[in-house]
C-alpha cells in the first residue's frame, strides 16, 4: 500500500527534517501546487529517491548525503546536495540544474535528456551512461565506462577518466582535462576547434569550474560502428 501521508510543513525558514518527515511526505509536498519555492531538507542520511520527479522552478537544498536517484527525472528545478550522492543522481533529468558538492556514485546523470549536472568532487563508474542530451561537469575524476553509449550532450571531466571512456559512444561530446585510463570501442581523440573551445568555456563557467578550455582534450565517436562491417568484428 502507498505509505500514509500527512502534509509535511516546513519551518518558518523553509526547513524540513527528514528524521521527522518521510521521503513520501517531502516528495508529495514538492509536487503539490502549493510547493514551497525554496526548501532545505536536513538529515537525509542516505535516503533514496529524494526530490525526484520535480516539475517546477523550485530551489531545493539537501543538506547531507543522499542515497540513490536523488533528483531523478528532474524538470526545471534546481537541486543542491551539500554532501555525496548515491547511484543515479539526476538520472533521466529533462531540464533544470543539479549540483552535488561532494562525490557522486555510479551512473550519475544516467540517460538524462537535458539540464546541467555538476559534481564538485568525483563521480564514479558509468558517469553519463547513455546520456541523451544532458550536460555533466565533474570537478574531479570519473570512473570506468563513463559516457558508455553516450548519445547526445556533453561531459566535462576536470580530473581523470577511468577505463573504457565513451565505449560505444554515439554523438555525445567529451572533454577531459586529466588522463584517460583507456578509450572504449569507437571513442577517439578529436580535434578541438573554436566552437568546441567556446562550448567548453560556457560549460565550465556555468558549473563554476575555474579551468581554461585549452587544458582539455576532446573525445568523441569515430562513427566506425554505426553500421556493421565485417572488418570491425573484433570490436564487438
Amino acid at each position, binding site marked *: *500500500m*502507498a*505509505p500514509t501521508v500527512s502534509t509535511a510543513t516546513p519551518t518558518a525558514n523553509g526547513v524540513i527534517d527528514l528524521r521527522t518527515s518521510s*521521503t*513520501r511526505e517531502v*516528495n*508529495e509536498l514538492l*509536487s503539490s501546487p502549493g510547493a514551497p519555492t525554496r526548501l532545505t531538507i536536513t538529515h537525509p542520511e542516505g535516503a*533514496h*529517491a529524494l526530490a*525526484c*520527479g520535480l*516539475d517546477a522552478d523550485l530551489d531545493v537544498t539537501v543538506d547531507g548525503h543522499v*542515497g*540513490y*536517484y536523488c533528483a*531523478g*527525472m528532474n*524538470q526545471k528545478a534546481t537541486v543542491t546536495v551539500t554532501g555525496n550522492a548515491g*547511484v*543515479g543522481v539526476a*538520472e*533521466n533529468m*529533462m531540464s533544470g540544474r543539479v549540483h552535488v558538492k561532494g562525490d557522486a556514485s*555510479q*551512473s550519475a546523470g*544516467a*540517460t538524462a*535528456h537535458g539540464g546541467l549536472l555538476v559534481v564538485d568532487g568525483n563521480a564514479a563508474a*558509468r558517469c553519463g*551512461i*547513455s546520456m*541523451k*542530451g544532458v550536460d555533466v561537469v565533474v570537478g574531479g575524476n570519473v570512473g570506468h565506462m563513463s559516457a*558508455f*553509449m553516450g*548519445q*547526445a550532450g556533453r561531459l566535462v571531466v576536470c580530473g581523470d577518466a577511468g577505463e573504457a571512456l565513451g565505449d*560505444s559512444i*554515439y*554523438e555525445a561530446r567529451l572533454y577531459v582535462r586529466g588522463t584517460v585510463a583507456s578509450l572504449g570501442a569507437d571513442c577517439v581523440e578529436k580535434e578541438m576547434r573554436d566552437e568546441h573551445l567556446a562550448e567548453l568555456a560556457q560549460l565550465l563557467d556555468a558549473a563554476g569550474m575555474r579551468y581554461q578550455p585549452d587544458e582539455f582534450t576532446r573525445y568523441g565517436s569515430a562513427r566506425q*560502428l*554505426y*553500421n*556493421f562491417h*565485417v572488418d570491425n*568484428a573484433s570490436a564487438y
Partner: protein
Amino acid sequence: MTTPTPPTQLRESATFDRGVIAEIQRAAETGIYDIRGWGAKRALPHFDDLLFLGASVSRYPLEGYREKCDTDVVLGDTHAKFPLHLDIPITIAGMSFGALSGQAKEALGRGASEVGTSTTTGDGGMTPEERGQSKNLVYQYLPSRYGMNPVDLRKADAIEIVLGQGAKPGGGGMLLGQKITDRVAGMRTLPMGVDQRSACRHPDWTGPDDLAIKILELREITNWEKPIYVKVGATRTYYDVKLAVKAGADVVVVDGMQGGTAATQEVFIEHVGIPTLAAIPQAVQALQEMGVHRSVQLIVSGGIRSGADVAKAMALGADAVAIGTAALIALGDNSPRFAEQYGELGSAAGFYDDFQAGRDPAGITTQDPELAKNLDPVQGGRRLANYLRVLTMEAQTLARACGKSHLRNLEPEDLVALTVEASAMARVPLAGTNWIPGRY
C-alpha cells in the same frame, strides 16, 4: 542390353539439412550473424500438447450465452492507487514504434480499446497515436531508456520494467539503420540510419535489491498511482518471479521462448530461454509459495494463438496473457494479399520473418511511408478487435465446458497432457494416467 543403373536417391542429412547448409553459406559470405524477427520457429512442447477434460458425469457444463462465463481481470491492486480493470484477460504485448509503423501502433490501440484491454509501448517510447487510441496503456521502462520522460510516465496507466523478453533473455533492443528514420531517430535521440546497438542491462541498477529502490523511485515520481509490472524472458523463472515480487512488483510478466521480436540474432531466438509451457508452473509455484498468487498477478506470453491457448495458460495459473506475434498477424502480417511482394523479397506469405529489414509489404514492421499505407489503422483496429473477441469466445467455450462461470476458475486439474515432455513441463498428468514425470 545392359539395365541402366537406377539413380541414387537424394538423401538429406538431419544434422546438416538444407537450412543449416544455407545458413553456413550465408555466414561465410557475409561475416555477420543472421538477424531476423519473429520468435522461435522450431517445434517445442506447447499448449497443443495439453487437452481439457470437459464435462462428464461428475462435472456439469454451463449453457452458452445465457449462463455467463466472465472474463474480466484486475491488474496491479496491491500498491497502486489506480489498478487496471480490463474486460478480457488478453493484452497486447510491448512492441516498439520503430519496430512497428505508426499506423500499426494506432491500429493496436484502436483494437484493444474496442474490447476493453491494454496495449504496451516498446523500446522507442510513447507515441501520441498509441496514447490517443489506447484506453489502457502500459509504458515500458527498458535498459535503453529511449524516449523515457516523466511527462509520458505520468500519462501511462501502468509501468512495465523490462529485464528481458522471451526471444532474447539477456539481449537488448535492436533496430537496424534502414528503420531509423527521421521520426524514430528523433524519438530515440539517435543519428538517422545507424544500426541501433542497445544495452542489455539497465544503466542505473542491476539485481533485485537495487530494482527495489528503482521501483520506489518510479512510484515516488508517479505518486504511487500506477501498477508496476516486471517483465522477464523465461529462464530461471521460479527464482525470477520470487525476486520480482520481493523487489516490489505488482504484476509479473513472463515471456516464453516462443515470444517474438522485431530483430535479433537467430541463434538467440532459437537457443536461449525455456518454452512458455515450462515457465508457467514455475511462476505460479513461486507466487503460491510466497502467498501472493492472484494478488500479484501473472501475465504470460510467448506463442498465444487461440482461445485454447488463453484458457490453458489461465488453467495453469496465469491471470492474463499477452499477444504480440498473433496481434500482428491479425492486423495483416503475412497475409496472402501480399503474396507477390513477399515473393519479390525472397520469401512467401506465412514464412516472412525479416521484420528487421523494414520492407514489410503489410505496412506493419516498416518505417517506409509508402509501405505503411498498406495498413489502414481503422481497418486494422477492427481486425484486431475481431480476433480478440474470437480468442475470448473460444476461451469461454472451453471454460463453460469445464463448468466455469469465470475464466479465472480454470485450474490445472482441468488439463491432461499428450506427451511426456508436456506433462513434465506443465506438471499435469499424461492423459489416462496419474503420472507426472519428475513430480515433486
